[in-house]
């Protein structure tokens, strides 16, 4: 899957989980930049990402996802 397609699908997940269709993803974006990105919605977002892309993150991978760019890179690696 191309990086642009990953970002497109990920954007749809963010719009749904954080209930905001105006979110534009950037590599540097973190939980602090998105309204309603709290512990519960974080968990839901990760679960929806796994479902959308048909992947399963390792716990060690999850605990290194600090920025949206890390998430995109990890999805890209897992899909290869």
């Amino acid at each position, binding site marked *: 899957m191309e990086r642009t397609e990953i970002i497109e699908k990920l954007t749809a997940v963010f719009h749904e989980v954080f209930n905001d269709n105006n979110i534009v993803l950037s590599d540097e974006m973190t939980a602090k930049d998105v309204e309603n990105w*709290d512990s519960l919605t*974080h*968990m839901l977002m990760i679960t929806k990402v*796994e479902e959308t892309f048909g992947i399963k993150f390792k*716990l060690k991978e999850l*605990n*290194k996802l600090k920025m949206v760019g890390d998430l995109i890179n990890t999805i890209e690696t897992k899909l290869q």
Partner: protein
Amino acid sequence: MSEEIKIRRATLEDVDFLVDTIVAAEKSGTDNFGLAKLFELSEGEMRTYIKAMLEEEVDGCEFSVSSFLVADHQGKAVSAFAGWVEGQNEDGMSSALLKSNLIGYCLPMENVMKSQSKSDIVRPLQIEREEGTYQLEYSYTLPEYRGKGIMKDIINMHIVDYQQNTPHRHQEGGIRKIQVHVFANNEAAIGTYKRCGFEITKEYNSNNPLVEQYFPYHTILLMERIV
């Protein structure tokens, strides 16, 4: 305190007592185990998943075995209280996200999804923790060991741990702050924290009547102590 009781760092051998501690603290003197309800699980199922989370041995949050100090009597844990420096774990992650990752990783996907409809209800009582502060969470003492000052001794040992493990803040003259969140109806715990030098500094409240389905009470107090 009885000389036979010693405070020590928890190990994986204490995991069953730590599960009891987390469940009792979540219920906060009620029968309401909101964490299980949030994911539409039975208490027994949620206990199994909490044990699995603890066994992952992730450091830096309230589901970390390494965060807990326990009071040990004759080789058995009788009291426990978790504490950690917020955001200063291996990956520099907030405890909230570490906890989320553990829950999301250990629970079945369909149960995680079931919490989605409740996210707006629980949000007002999901409190962001202050980076660099020492956070205390999940305390419990077996009934027959209460009133012996055990919790005060555990808190004091957490404070020593904080002072010894954050020397850079001390050298810079930075303020060290210990924070604990407590349900406003838990007078016994509030009294204990006050005796340990904590003061109420903030109140978090939800007027949504549904919130008490997932929390033992609608108001949480932030109590702080400067060390």
